[in-house]
């Protein structure tokens, strides 16, 4: 357990020698790496390597359909029946490539025959040894079917073994084909597609508006909610738990509820608005440009204000009370105290929250996807990844969008580490 493997151990020895680390420190180092190994391995395999793989996929012409490697498919057909000695039966194997675009090479087909059959005709590509048929095809072009024909006559031995049917043994086929993921066919079409389209600028704009609006909305609501909780009243604990509901509930549950409530024809919200004469016509909250973006921003603010609320509340409860008492003595009014005492002390946590939430809102996919599916002018970058890769079935273009996301995020994260919190633990 305290040793990873001999090879890495010797590497560590070298490092140790270079840095003049003593044997105890060396042992501690090895232990530390051993204890971190599972974390490192799984993060590498599921997060970091896929992240890098996006770059690879983004320059490959690859669609959803080509993911499955092309393989030979074979079907067996027989004509005639064997009822007496001397009867003839013909067998045909039809072989084709499973992919409509990719050829299969080095195809080998195997089948076994029942005993007691005399070959009359054998396909030239095939060899018959005993009861075994083996055929070799050097290449199987896509969309072209190859037929291999055989004919056999039955002998007495065939009926002695109970006259088994020829189809009882299924033919097997194997072959080699290019793996679209690992071959060396590259293209820049994906990026051209992503950047050429007018929608790129729209996606950029929508992402920005959504991210900024959602973040600010959640922060402002959270600040407001935290102020409420600073008063002492009965049922405060229950209230605090209630305020966290939108955040802890599964997104599918709350998103579908919103969709139903906001439905233009049978939604409760529209029914309330029309019956109280706020609007004369129903509002299409999720299906109309502009409205839809505003609604998903409102949803984002609604769902994530609890997080901001929790952090701001925690910070406010740790503020010293004597500052307020002193200010009150000096004649400060409540708004002045909020503006000049509370806010300056909250600005740190608020800016941290802003940066974190900004990044996470930018990364958000589920919410918009479930609410609008990216329609009516709500297609952000993350929804566009899905749209390109799975709706249009072009994995390469999806990966190209993902690469764009990566670079934008890299910019944000740099900003975060440059201007973000320096303190530990946040």
């Amino acid at each position: 357990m305290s040793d990873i493997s001999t090879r890495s151990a010797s590497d560590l020895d070298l490092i140790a020698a270079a840095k003049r680390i003593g044997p105890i420190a060396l042992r501690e180092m090895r232990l530390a790496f051993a204890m971190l190994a599972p974390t490192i391995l799984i993060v590498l395999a599921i997060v970091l390597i896929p992240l890098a793989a996006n770059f690879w996929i983004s320059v490959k012409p690859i669609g959803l359909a080509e993911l499955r490697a092309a393989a030979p498919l074979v079907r067996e057909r027989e004509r005639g029946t064997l009822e007496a000695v001397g009867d003839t039966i013909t067998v045909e194997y039809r072989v084709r490539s499973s992919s409509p675009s990719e050829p299969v090479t080095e195809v080998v087909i195997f089948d076994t025959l029942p005993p007691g059959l005399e070959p009359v005709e054998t396909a030239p590509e095939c060899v018959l040894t005993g009861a075994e048929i083996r055929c070799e095809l050097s290449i199987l072009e896509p969309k072209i079917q190859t037929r291999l024909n055989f004919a056999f006559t039955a002998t007495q031995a065939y009926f002695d073994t109970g006259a088994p049917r020829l189809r009882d043994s299924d033919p097997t086929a194997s072959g080699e084909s290019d793996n679209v993921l690992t071959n060396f066919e590259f293209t820049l079409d994906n990026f051209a597609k992503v950047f050429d389209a007018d929608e790129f600028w729209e996606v950029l704009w929508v992402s920005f508006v959504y991210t900024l609006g959602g973040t600010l909305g959640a922060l402002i609501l959270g600040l407001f909610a935290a102020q409420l909780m600073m008063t002492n009243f009965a049922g405060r604990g229950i209230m605090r738990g209630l305020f966290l509901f939108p955040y802890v509930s599964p997104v599918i549950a709350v998103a579908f509820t919103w969709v139903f409530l906001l439905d233009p024809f049978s939604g409760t919200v529209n029914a309330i608005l029309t019956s109280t004469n706020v609007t004369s016509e129903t509002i299409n909250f999720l299906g109309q440009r502009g409205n839809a973006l505003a609604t998903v921003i409102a949803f984002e603010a609604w769902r994530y204000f609890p997080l901001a609320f929790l952090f701001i509340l925690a910070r406010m409860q740790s503020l010293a009370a004597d500052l307020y008492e002193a200010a009150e003595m000096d004649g400060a009014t409540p708004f002045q105290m909020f503006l000049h005492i509370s806010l300056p002390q909250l600005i740190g946590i608020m800016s941290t929250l802003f940066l974190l939430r900004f990044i996470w809102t930018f990364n958000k996919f589920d919410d918009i996807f479930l609410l609008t599916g990216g329609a009516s002018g709500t297609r952000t970058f993350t929804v566009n990844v899905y749209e390109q890769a799975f709706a249009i079935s072009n994995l390469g273009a999806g990966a190209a969008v993902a690469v764009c996301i990566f670079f934008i995020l890299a910019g944000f994260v740099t900003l975060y580490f440059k201007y973000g919190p320096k303190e530990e633990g946040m």
Partner: protein
Amino acid sequence: MRGAVMDKRAFALGGGLGLLWGFINAVVFGVAVTLIFGTSATLTGGAAALAGLAATLVWMLLDGKGAVSAFDKRRLAISVLTFAIVLSLATFFSPLGFALGDRPLGALLTLAALGGATVAAVACCFGQAGWRGLRRYKFELVLIRTLKGFGFVFFSAIVVFPFYAMLMTSFKKQSELLANPLDYSINLSQGFAELFSSYIELFMDFNFGRFILISALVSVITVLLTLAASIPGAYAIARLRFPGRTAFSRSILLIYMVPAIVLVIPLYAVFSQLGLRDSLLGLVIVYPATTIPVALYMLQGYFRGLPAELEEAGLMDGCTRLGVIWRITMPLSLPAIASVALYVFMIAWNEFLFAFMFLDSPENFTLSRGVVSLNSSEVPRQHLMAGAVIVTVPVLVIFLWFERFLVTGLTAGSVKG
């Protein structure tokens, strides 16, 4: 003279409050009654605001130079009466949408409650000391109280309303829902089987029992794998010295910032070729990868806060490092481990994206994937809402039960969402 000027301002403020609270109370009351009982209560917000204004002015005028307390019973009663009379006059004697004579007792009680709520809200905004002596300090205090009162109504409404709608919709019938979207009342006399028919159908025909089991299984395995990797990892970062330690603990934060959708395409491609895509094994590999960094970050913070002397004593007494972790660190940090475990459970239970992308065959569906499969025009709406309730209830129960644990965990880890 100055007192009179201040009085004018106080009356203006009080009038505003009366208008505001009369209006808010009428709207909240009207919508709430409609949504709870299904009978539409048409309250005119404008008339109620006017009544609130009148009641507040009466309440203010009845203040006998501070001798009578702000919450004096007779004073409140007269104000409430004013409210009822003004509202009735302003709506031609049908203040609740029907003539007063139709249901006099109910109407009067409702008017009294509404008026009482309005006057009490105004009185609370002014506070125990009453409305006299309005200076800037007090003026702002009143404004802040008003804002807070409005805030409570607002936040309660936006949080409770969707969950209430979700629950009640699951008990309704499609035809009722389409006929009157405002009617959330349920008919309790129809019997258990009728009432819960959507739930029964989900369990009998849509295999939701299996989905629940799968979700529970996947979530528990995710928790176990996450803890198995993150406890030693967090300990190493918190206690052991090795090159790259600070870089490592910083880069954990970076993993937080990788969006899941970016990982979906490569994982989809590779898992498809390995045959892991439409399988629970695939999910159980992916979920821990998203939760381990969070768990590690939360735990290392906690481990750092434990006194190192205890562990050193253990080492001196001949324990190995792993023995120290097992016998000293872990027992001491059980609360933190519990909150991480609950938190990871909730993440795995709520997870939607990977389950949606990877799982195709219904025998592998997790609960959230199962709920998404109900979102089609052939499945009635109440079924989908029943599914939403089924997926939400366990999370909310866990959350309410262990709220203290979880809230500490949430803030300690600044957790991803």
